[in-house]
């Protein structure tokens, strides 16, 4: 039965346009205790690097008004561990698997991309926009020339459709988006976190051990929506929109701005049912408004 919610991105068809934002949902195992993972269009997992990364010192989290700062620093057990433990787990479910990859250097990016080339996963998301690692990450994601070069180099090793995840910390997001596409991105995802800070005025020090962290949640949504709108009008590849999405109304705003799909991140912390409630909400909206396919409203904002 066709629900009208099927969404095809770079040749991969999701049953609905909702995935999880990398790093907020682990590999699904933990949230699987509370929600039915089969409901999700796709699961985007926590960033995986070639070798295990220890991550940043704690405290790594700070709550802000309607937002969250994190400085996890891409702690992960490395690609080998992931492939042995998480892919078999995820394949039990009827959902697409998107693996988010990261590296400190270009060769690390290439190595991890290559390692996943032979793996049973559906899409690869290249994180060149993480603000929480010293080398690589953000520095790779802000200069359009570097972006194009990095994407092109990594692309060479990638066998699955390649999503490139963009940083919002740039003067002109459309320039970076075009660079990623000309480097070979099959799809784009945005936005990663903005960098933010919070200070404990009683202890007179930043809450985060790393002082500065990535800012996510409802507080970044207006910026995210604007950037998704701009990028959708600048490139021809599909866009996965994210940044503060917490309700189906939020998700629909991104879809109307032109997003092919959406990812839910920080909202999971506020409401572990957020993803499934968003899917149900979109379905209800479609029914009430007699929309038989999301195509009817996607990108309706010109």
């Amino acid at each position: 039965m066709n629900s009208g919610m099927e969404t095809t991105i770079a040749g991969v068809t999701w049953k609905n346009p909702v995935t999880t934002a990398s790093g907020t949902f682990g590999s699904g195992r933990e949230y699987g205790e509370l929600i039915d993972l089969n409901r999700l269009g796709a699961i985007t997992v926590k960033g995986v690097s070639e070798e295990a990364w220890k991550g940043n010192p704690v405290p790594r989290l700070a709550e802000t008004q309607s937002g969250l700062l994190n400085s996890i620093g891409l702690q992960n057990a490395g690609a080998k561990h992931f492939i042995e433990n998480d892919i078999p787990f995820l394949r039990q479910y009827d959902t697409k698997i998107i693996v988010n990859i990261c590296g400190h250097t270009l060769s690390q990016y290439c190595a991890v991309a290559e390692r996943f080339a032979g793996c049973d996963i559906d899409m690869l998301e290249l994180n060149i926009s993480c603000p929480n690692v010293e080398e690589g990450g953000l520095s790779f994601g802000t200069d359009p020339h570097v972006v194009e070069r990095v994407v092109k180099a990594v692309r060479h090793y990638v066998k699955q459709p390649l999503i490139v995840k963009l940083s919002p910390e740039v003067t002109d997001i459309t320039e970076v988006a075009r660079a990623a596409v000309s480097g070979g991105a099959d799809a784009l995802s945005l936005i990663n976190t903005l960098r933010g800070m919070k200070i404990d005025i009683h202890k007179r020090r930043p809450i985060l051990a790393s002082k500065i962290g990535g800012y996510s949640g409802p507080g970044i949504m207006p910026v995210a929506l604007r950037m998704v709108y701009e990028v959708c009008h600048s490139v021809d590849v599909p866009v996965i929109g994210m940044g503060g999405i917490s309700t189906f109304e939020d998700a629909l705003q991104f879809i109307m701005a032109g997003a092919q799909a959406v990812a839910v991140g920080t909202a999971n912390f506020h409401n572990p049912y957020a993803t499934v409630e968003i899917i149900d909400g979109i379905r209800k909206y479609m029914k009430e408004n007699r929309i038989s396919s999301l195509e009817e409203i996607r990108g309706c904002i010109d």
Partner: protein
Amino acid sequence: MSTYCTAAVINHEEIIPGVWKIELSAPEIAKTARPGQFIQLYPPDERNLLARPLSLSSISKESVTVVYRVVGQGTKQFSCLQVDDMVRVMGPLGNGFTLPDAGTQNVIVGGGLGIPPLLELAKRFHENTVVLLGYRDDPFMAEDFQRLGLEVHIASQSGNYGFHGTVLDLLENLTLPAGMIFACGPRQMLQSVSMWAKGHNVPIQVSLEERMACGLGACLGCGVKIQKPGEQDWRYLRVCKDGPVFSGEEVVWNE
């Protein structure tokens, strides 16, 4: 298995200034909860996105009780909850304490707000158990432990009540050899008790705190440095999922 639900407040009282005891009707959570586990309680003001982790202080058939100190925005809001108000909660979370073999000489060591989370554990022990409670100033909930018929020793740093000193002093004065220590309290206290336990070759379980987002083990926000025996280096484990109870010897304390 943990549940996310909306729970009604059954009881709520300020037990000493700034410290509240709240009982929530949450049969699903109560059913599987174990001593040392915690819940995530969501502040009613939705500007506060994150739930607050609070350790279970007691567990009954249909309800769970936590004791908390008002320290910031979230706990302030909790303190305004009235009986019959509804509040979002997730739990039970974390590993909880590992119960020792029967016959082990248990020593329960609590400091300040680390005391209430030990009550449900103490309830499971009927003998061979000494309870050492340390307060900065005036004591609270000591009678809950005494009522269990256990041997309770109290210390206060101010000397206002019980022994003038810390729980470490009480530990030093123990007459029986400890078989297993269960400790909860400020990090500084847990560290010194763990050092003492190491020196005396006594196994110890400590309950730790760290800032949390998901509370489920998914976000890796709540790292604690752990080095397991035989491992070459420490790595960050998750307080929410791998803990909050860790073996005191395995915690890398020096930060």
